[in-house]
């Protein structure tokens, strides 16, 4: 299919958001172009996000930056892409499911790169060739991805000046090469004039305050530091590594430290050791690492040492799909410890919320002297978003420590709250031995049923009695049906609930931030008047659905909508499902 050369300009469709997929082989620069596009959009007063997706290869595989821009904060992807721009088509067909197009969509490819693959052409989208490589070749020192940035930016309604401005801000090479790439961007902007059919964003609001440009991994890292974390030990793993790479220099600046461990068994035990020493500590990993850490997390339960484990979930089981998202570690996080082991499990509900939820996890772990697992995922962790500066959250919990020479000190004293003062090494007169063996109140190993029952009750009680306040869930909307979800899926569900409301069907959204311990009273209050629930999640085993059924009384005939990763659940399909469910 070739571009229609008709001079007839189609009336531009106005849209609340536009979606752009920049694709190509790994190393073609699509992630750089996507990041600059998002950056430029932020400068232009837009909100948006960029989701990264790539094949398993480090170089030379397929890669795509999935960008959605809008006038309002946007946390998830849309149903379809308005624009697919491929710098080359090498293996880009593998994204056929991840980059759905409509007949109204636009495809832009390199004019020397052959035709667009059938999997995309089948949508009926219009194809426009642009000479990316030839143009870049003609401007010595310039790159094809900058021509692509010019095209995509112009089609998003962003001016050449803003596009070149963001390149200048991040440029680290010679001034000559910068000028060459300015020319490449402008060439792309010029080429975009011949491309028809892109929707336009309506007039944008001027930002009231400076917005943030942040990834979920960075937000989680910053939230951890805000919560007081000053020691991190971790082993590299996709897709958590960027969180650690962000934290290493950040911790050093605030007087903390990050240590690269030899494996995840070491990571978890290192942070337990550091936290035992009084320093709030964290590790970040993905499913395979969490699996290795389970024994250590059990030690943190038994020895009552606060630690935070951020699991940036990816496809599982086993090594699974390392660079793509899935919400399939929930069952491991809520159930996966030996013995009866109460633990905290939390999940951020958006990229921005990675900050507040991780901060809360640190404060809860510290206050309750227990391990907290934070279930982020690749979608949130590796995506970058333009957000309003998150509100400061007052500190919600601190560790209770023992005073020097406290009278009759017992580390694991059976207090009413279940929380007992923790002696920090260096404090005289209260030394004790922390133990993963069951123990007496004084911490001496014991295999007697009485001590076991006392300590089991204490560890359960301290988590059960805590007042988690309003943060336990985001509850929005009205209706006698409730859609319950968690994590990155929340964005699509929120959008679907809004669309259902526009179609005249009101339902409630409950996005759980605190997954464990279960909150039966709060849950019952939230479901007051609700007669039906639909549980939405991104995994194959309906893990949230099964967990909720085991922990809560759900009204009516609970429904489950679950699909494994890496395909995100999309707002349109969810809205359709909600309408079908409510209209019976």
């Amino acid at each position, binding site marked *: 299919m070739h571009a229609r050369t008709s001079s007839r300009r189609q009336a531009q469709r106005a849209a609340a958001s536009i979606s752009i997929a920049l694709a190509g082989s790994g190393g073609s620069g699509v992630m750089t172009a996507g990041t600059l596009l998002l950056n430029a959009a932020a400068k232009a007063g837009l909100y948006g996000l960029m989701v990264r997706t790539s094949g398993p290869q480090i170089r030379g595989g397929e890669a795509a930056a999935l960008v959605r821009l809008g006038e309002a904060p946007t946390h998830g992807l849309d149903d379809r892409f308005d624009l697919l721009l491929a710098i080359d088509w090498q293996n880009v067909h593998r994204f056929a499911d991840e980059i759905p197009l409509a007949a109204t969509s636009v495809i832009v490819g390199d004019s020397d790169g052959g035709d667009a693959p059938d999997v995309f052409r089948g949508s009926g989208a219009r194809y426009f060739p642009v000479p990316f490589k030839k143009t870049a070749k003609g401007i010595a020192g310039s790159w094809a991805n900058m021509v692509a940035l010019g095209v995509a930016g112009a089609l998003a309604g962003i001016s050449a000046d803003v596009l070149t401005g963001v390149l200048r801000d991040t440029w680290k090479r010679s001034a000559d090469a910068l000028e060459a790439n300015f020319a490449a961007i402008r060439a792309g902007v010029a080429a975009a004039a011949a491309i028809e059919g892109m929707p336009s964003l309506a007039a944008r609001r001027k930002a009231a305050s400076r917005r943030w440009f942040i990834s979920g991994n960075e937000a989680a890292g910053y939230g951890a530091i805000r919560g007081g974390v000053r020691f991190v030990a971790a082993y590299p793993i996709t897709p958590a590594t960027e969180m650690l790479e962000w934290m290493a220099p950040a911790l050093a600046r605030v007087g903390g*430290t990050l240590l690269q461990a030899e494996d995840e068994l070491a*990571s978890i035990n290192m942070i337990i*050791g550091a936290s035992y020493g009084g320093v709030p500590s964290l590790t970040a990993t993905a499913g395979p690492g969490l699996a290795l850490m389970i024994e250590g997390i059990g030690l943190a339960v038994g020895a009552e040492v606060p630690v935070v484990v951020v699991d940036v979930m990816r496809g599982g089981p086993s090594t699974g799909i390392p660079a793509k998202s899935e919400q399939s570690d929930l069952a491991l996080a809520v159930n996966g410890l030996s013995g009866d082991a109460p633990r905290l499990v939390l999940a951020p509900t958006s990229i921005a919320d990675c900050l507040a939820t991780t901060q809360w996890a640190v404060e809860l772990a510290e206050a309750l002297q227990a391990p907290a697992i934070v279930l982020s995922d690749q979608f949130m962790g590796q995506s970058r978003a333009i957000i309003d500066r998150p509100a400061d959250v007052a500190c919600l919990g601190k560790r209770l420590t023992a005073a020097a020479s406290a009278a009759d000190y017992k580390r694991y004293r059976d207090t009413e709250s279940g929380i007992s003062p923790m002696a920090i090494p260096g404090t005289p007169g209260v030394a004790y031995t922390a133990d993963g063996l069951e123990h007496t109140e004084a911490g001496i190993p014991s295999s007697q049923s009485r001590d076991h029952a006392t300590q089991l009750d204490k560890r359960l009680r301290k988590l059960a009695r805590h007042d988690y306040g309003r943060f336990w869930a985001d509850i929005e909307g009205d209706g006698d049906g409730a859609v319950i979800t968690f994590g990155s899926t929340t964005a699509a569900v929120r959008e679907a609930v809004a669309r259902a409301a526009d179609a005249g069907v009101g339902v409630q959204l409950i996005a759980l931030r605190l997954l464990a311990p279960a909150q039966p009273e709060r849950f019952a209050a939230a479901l007051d008047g609700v007669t039906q629930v639909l549980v939405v999640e991104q995994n194959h085993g309906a893990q949230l659905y099964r967990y909720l059924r085991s922990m809560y009384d759900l009204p009516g005939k609970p429904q489950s909508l679950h699909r494994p990763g890496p395909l995100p659940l999309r707002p349109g399909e969810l809205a359709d499902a909600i309408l079908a469910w409510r209209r019976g």
Partner: protein
Amino acid sequence: MKEAAARAPLTAQNYKSGYKPIWCPGCGDYSVLSSVTKALAMVQVPPEDVVVVSGIGCSSRIPAYTTCYGFHGVHGRALAAATGLKVARPDLTVLVAGGDGDGYSIGGNHFLHACRRNVDLTYIVMDNHVYGMTKGQPSPTTEPDWDSKLSPGGTGVRSFHPLVIALASGANFVARAFSGDPNGTAAIIAQAIRHPGFSFVEVLSPCVTFRPDQREWKEMAHPAPVTATDDPARAARRIMTDDGFNIGVLYAGKRKPYAAVTGKPRATVADLEAEFEQ
């Protein structure tokens, strides 16, 4: 490490708790416990500034038998817990104690990396060439032909050589001690605590219950004929060729201990926000 200033000199007794060890009568570990408390008295670091970290096994019960802070974690991970603790709290004196199964088998990877990393820890392994707590299975240091229920006729697998592995992996101090000589062991442990970086002390500590043959060790142990060297190649040759009962400090190196990327805060938490701002 803080030296006690104003108080009366600490004695070994100040480091002994009242808890009765679970060990069998005649176990070498009683003597090692006594050596540890004597060594701490030699160093004069107050008990509250010392943490004894261990994993799982008979010898790993040692923390609660001292008046120091203790951390009795999971099997094989003592060095990891101690590393996190010492890096986060460099002001503390951290001893790590355990057995041959805990340190060389399930914890083997941490042993290699603790040696490499050279964090200022003192690692005391009470080696009896057997899993005692689980009632007599072969450990990495067990002789290949040692008969047991789990490995009838022996494992057929050559024994692990912890000292040469420690040296090759970068431990800054390598010594062998014998529980039958508590004063000598105390002196070695004190030297290990004072030596910067990762100090490894392998203590031959007989298991009288499952390895009664180890009573012979008393006859076999002998002082190393030459003093410690700081040349790893020389130390390696000696350790590789000795009879396994050469007692003393065999290597005392000069590697710089692990330096954590830490220090005084140069920025406030709020300062970190600047990079996110558009």
